[in-house]
């Protein structure tokens, strides 16, 4: 069985409701479940009828929930970097660089990384207490960016590592030929070079996250019976394919909401589709959400490894 489940999809298709119903069903069947909302516009607490924060809160037996606050993660990370900088650099240099920190939180990529840090924290410090972690994700654009971030960053880290190795090799040559060169006082070994060490640790962290997304996670796309959400589901499938994250299933939510004609694109026809009927009277309260029939989806999730092995 996979240990993580991600529910992706266009804004408003019902990712939070579907992921909450999935988590509630599993928890009520006896699994220890943590559900985490990564969406900056949180409404998981509303669905579960409780107030959630950045730490896991027990919602009911076997089910804990949290809402990740991305701002806290960005601030925490910048503060750690600022302290590291202040202790490593000489005074005047730190003073000049310090001024960059105030604008770092607006830098492209920071929000995506904050999501990754939060997932890494959940994986390393919290997931040990649970059988599985269910993620309610932000709308497509941010989700695809954070899912792609380990792959993109790994390419950069690989190139920077190669360049660093060339630098260290050159330093070694110079030190061997001329031990009184100023270069001799700098790091010449991979083991001593902190930049090389940091690149290695970033590589390992990104590799772990990449494995989490591609090997340990069940990726479900939630869509509605309309053309727009089908188009977006197709884009998600193509993008996941490009970054080598296998799509596991489609959840057709709000089935029967409209009589307008629609078709599931043939490129999506190879994936299992799990239908969730539209409830015209609305879903009121946690028990109503828990009442959504998730049996088939849970069965597919539980047997997913067997499916994949069978397909290979």
């Amino acid at each position, binding site marked *: 069985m996979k240990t993580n489940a991600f529910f992706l999809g266009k804004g408003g298709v019902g990712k939070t409701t579907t992921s909450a119903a999935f988590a509630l069903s599993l928890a009520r069947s006896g699994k220890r479940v943590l559900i985490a909302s990564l969406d900056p516009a949180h409404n998981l607490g509303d669905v579960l009828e409780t107030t959630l924060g950045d730490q896991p809160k027990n919602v009911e037996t076997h089910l804990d929930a949290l809402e990740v606050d991305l701002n806290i993660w960005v601030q925490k990370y910048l503060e750690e970097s600022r302290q590291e900088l202040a*202790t490593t650099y000489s005074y005047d240099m730190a003073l000049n660089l310090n001024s960059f920190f105030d604008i770092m939180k607006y830098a492209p990529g920071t929000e995506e990384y904050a999501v990754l840090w939060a997932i890494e924290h959940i994986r390393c410090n919290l997931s040990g207490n649970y059988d599985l972690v269910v993620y309610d994700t932000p709308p497509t654009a941010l989700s695809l960016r954070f899912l792609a971030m380990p792959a993109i960053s790994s390419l950069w880290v690989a190139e920077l590592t190669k360049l660093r190795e060339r630098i260290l090799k050159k330093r070694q040559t110079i030190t061997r030929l001329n031990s009184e060169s100023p270069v001799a006082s700098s790091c010449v070994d991979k083991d001593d070079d902190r930049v090389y060490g940091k690149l290695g640790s970033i590589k390992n962290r990104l590799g772990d996250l990449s494995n989490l997304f591609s090997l340990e996670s069940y990726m479900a796309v939630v869509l509605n019976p309309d053309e727009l959400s089908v188009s977006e589901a197709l884009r998600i499938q193509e993008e996941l394919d490009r970054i080598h994250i296998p799509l596991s299933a489609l959840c057709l939510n709000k089935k029967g909401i409209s009589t307008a004609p629609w078709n599931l694109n043939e490129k999506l026809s190879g994936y299992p589709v799990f239908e969730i009927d539209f409830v015209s009277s609305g879903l009121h309260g946690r028990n109503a959400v828990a009442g959504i029939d998730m049996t088939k989806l849970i069965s597919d999730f539980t047997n997913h490894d067997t499916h994949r092995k069978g397909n290979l």
Partner: protein
Amino acid sequence: MNNFLDNVKKAYKIFLQVHKEKATGIAEFELKELENIFSLLILGGFVGMPSPPVPIAMELLPYMERELTIMLARSDTAQDPIGPLFGILDVD
């Protein structure tokens, strides 16, 4: 006599060191170029160059004091990039 031998030893040492410096001069120039490129890649985002995601740059920045000093020194001679190399090669 001992004094004379000491002086010869010192002169030989200086002679050796001068040649070592000459032998590694070009390699040191290349090394500084590589270190400068490394810094430019990390901090390129600030001057409009393609760069890794900012958080990666932020993680490496605390350990790059030497590279940053070289980059700043390089920016001082940016108008005369060949000058330092010609200096090493004794070209006037």
